[in-house]
C-alpha cells in the first residue's frame, strides 16, 4: 500500500494539443453531419404525420372508391390506391427479384471475367443511372401505345417498376454474394460438390439474409415510385384488383394528383396517402431487418 501511495498516478488521457483538437473537430463535424441529415428527415416525417394522421382511418385505408376531389376528407378513402400499390409492386417484385438474383448469381459464381458477364454488369450499372421516368416512357412506348387505351394496366406499371428494381436487385445481390468467403466455397468443392451444389447449398444459404433484405429494400423503393406509373397504369377511382387488364391507380400517383388540387379534401387525402405509403415502406424495412436476423442465426 505504501509503495502505491508514493507513486504518481499515470496520466492516460490523450495528450493535449493538435491531436486532441483534431479529434474534437472530427467528432464535431460528424455530429453536424448527422444533424444535417436528421433535420430534413424529421421535418418530412413530422409534416406528413401532422397533415396525414387526421385523415387516416380504417375506412380511409379500405374504401374502394376515391371520392371526387370536391368532397371533404371524411368521405371515401384511398383503398383503391392501397390495393393498386400493393398489387403493382408485388407483381413487379415477382418479375424483378428472381431475375435480379439469378443475374447476380451468374455474375458472381459463373461469369468470372467472361465478356458476357462484364457486359451484363456494365449494362446493369448503366440501368441504375437511368431516371425512373424514362423507365415509364419505355414501357409506355413498347407496351402501352401498341395496345391503345387497353394498354393501361397495373401490369404495365409493374413492368416499368421491374425495370427500375432489376439493376438495384442485381447490384445488391452481387455485393452480398461476393461477401460469402471463398473458403466456404473451397470447403464444399473439397467434398466433391459440383458448382451448382456449391452455389445452392453453401453460397445461397450463407447469403440468404442479405439477399432477402436487399430485395425488400428494392421493393420499398419501388413502392414509392411515381414516374414509372404515370404513363403506364392510367387512372381510376375504384379498386381494380385485376392488374392484367383495366387502368389502375397507386398511392404515389394519388399523392401526385391530389396535392395539386385546389380542394382541401383532396389535399388532405393526398397527405393521408403519403403517410400510408411511408408506413408501407417502413413495414418493408422492418421486415428486411427481421428476415436478416432470422437467416443469420447460424452465422455465429
Amino acid at each position, binding site marked *: 500500500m505504501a509503495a502505491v501511495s508514493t507513486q504518481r498516478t499515470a496520466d492516460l488521457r490523450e495528450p493535449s494539443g493538435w491531436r486532441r483538437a483534431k479529434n474534437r473537430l472530427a467528432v464535431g463535424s460528424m455530429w453536424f453531419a448527422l444533424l444535417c441529415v436528421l433535420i430534413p428527415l424529421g421535418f418530412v416525417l413530422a409534416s406528413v404525420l401532422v397533415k396525414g394522421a387526421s385523415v387516416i382511418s380504417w375506412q380511409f385505408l379500405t374504401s374502394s372508391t376515391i371520392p371526387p376531389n370536391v368532397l371533404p376528407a371524411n368521405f371515401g378513402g384511398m383503398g383503391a390506391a392501397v390495393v393498386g400499390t400493393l398489387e403493382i409492386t408485388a407483381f413487379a417484385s415477382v418479375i424483378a427479384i428472381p431475375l435480379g438474383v439469378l443475374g447476380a448469381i451468374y455474375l458472381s459464381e459463373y461469369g468470372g471475367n467472361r465478356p458476357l458477364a462484364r457486359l451484363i454488369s456494365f449494362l446493369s450499372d448503366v440501368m441504375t443511372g437511368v431516371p425512373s421516368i424514362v423507365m415509364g416512357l419505355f414501357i409506355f412506348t413498347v407496351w402501352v401505345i401498341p395496345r391503345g387505351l387497353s394498354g393501361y394496366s397495373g401490369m404495365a406499371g409493374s413492368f416499368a417498376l421491374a425495370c427500375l428494381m432489376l439493376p438495384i436487385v442485381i447490384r445488391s445481390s452481387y455485393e452480398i454474394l461476393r461477401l460469402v468467403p471463398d473458403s466456404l466455397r473451397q470447403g464444399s468443392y473439397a467434398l466433391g460438390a459440383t458448382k451448382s451444389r456449391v452455389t445452392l447449398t453453401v453460397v445461397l444459404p*450463407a447469403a440468404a439474409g442479405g439477399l432477402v433484405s436487399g430485395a425488400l429494400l428494392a421493393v420499398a423503393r419501388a413502392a414509392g415510385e411515381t414516374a414509372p406509373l404515370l404513363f403506364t397504369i392510367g387512372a381510376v377511382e375504384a379498386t381494380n384488383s385485376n392488374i392484367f387488364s383495366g387502368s389502375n391507380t397507386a398511392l404515389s400517383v394519388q399523392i401526385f394528383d391530389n396535392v395539386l388540387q385546389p380542394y382541401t379534401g383532396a389535399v388532405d387525402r393526398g397527405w393521408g396517402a403519403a403517410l400510408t405509403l411511408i408506413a408501407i415502406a417502413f413495414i418493408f424495412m422492418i421486415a428486411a431487418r427481421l428476415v436478416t436476423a432470422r437467416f443469420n442465426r*447460424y452465422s455465429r
Partner: protein
Amino acid sequence: MEQPEQDVVTQTVSTHLPKLETTVRATSQTPGTAIFEVKNVSIYYGAFKAVTDVSLPIYENEVTAFIGSSGSGKSTVLRAFNRMNDLVQGARVDGEMTYRGADLYGKDVSATAVRRRIGMVFQKPNPFPKSIYDNVAYGPRINGIRNKARLDEIVEKSLRRAALWDEVKNRLKQSGLALSGGQAQRLCIARTIAVEPDVVLMDEPASALDPIATLAVEDLIRELKQNYTIVIVTHNMQQATRISDRTAFFSVLTDSKNDTRTGVLVEHGPTQQIFEDPRDSRTQAYVTGRMG
C-alpha cells in the same frame, strides 16, 4: 516464354547449388503401395511457374509431411492432388500425376469424382454457417444419402473419429461457427472423413491453433493414419517429426538474373533420415534451423 525459364533453373541448380537428389533412397522401413506417383510436375499460375519439376511417390497408409519455407510451393503441390488448383483461374499442371494408376489430369477425369476420394482440410478452419450436424452431414448428403438414421450414424461416427463427439453431442443443432478454433478444425476434419475418402490432404491444419488444440489434432492425425493416407503441409518441423513417416522438403530457387523464383522439391525420404541424415545441404540448413 517457359522454355528459357526452365533452362535458367537447370543452370542455377547445376552451377550454384549442390546436385538435387531425386531418387528415393533405401528407406528405413519398407513402403507400401504408392498411391500417388508424381513425375516431373511443374505448376503454373498464369505465366508464373510456382513449382518446377517435382517428382515423388506418396505411399498408402502413411503420413507424408511437406516442409519448407513459405512460397516454396507446398500448398500448390498439395492442391494439385485433388485438383483444387482447377478453381484458380489460369492455374495449370504440367507433367504426370497419377492416383492409383489413373492419370489425375486425364481427359475424362471429373474433378468432383477426384475430390470425393481425396478430401482436404484447410489452414483456416472453414465450417459452413450451418449446424454442427449439417456440417458433417453435408458431404454424405451430396453423395445422395438421405436416410436420417444412416446420416445420424455417419455424423456420430465421424465426430467420434475426429475426437469431437463428447464436446458437441448435446449441441448438434448449434452453429458450427460457435466452436473454438481447435473444435472448428476438428469439425472440418470430421466433415472431411464423413465421406470416407481414401486420402486426406491437410494444409497446415494446426497453424491457426493453440498448442493444446494442435496436440489434439496431431493425435487425431496419428489415429486417422490407420484408415487413410495423409499428406500434410506443416511449418512446424517438430510436428513433422512427431506425426509423419516420410518428409518432403521444398525450397525456393531464386534466379537473381531474371528475377524469377520457383519452388522445387529438394529432397524426400523417411522422416528420420531427412531430419538426422539429410543428403542435401539446404535440407540440413533448414532442419537444423539455420535457414528460413
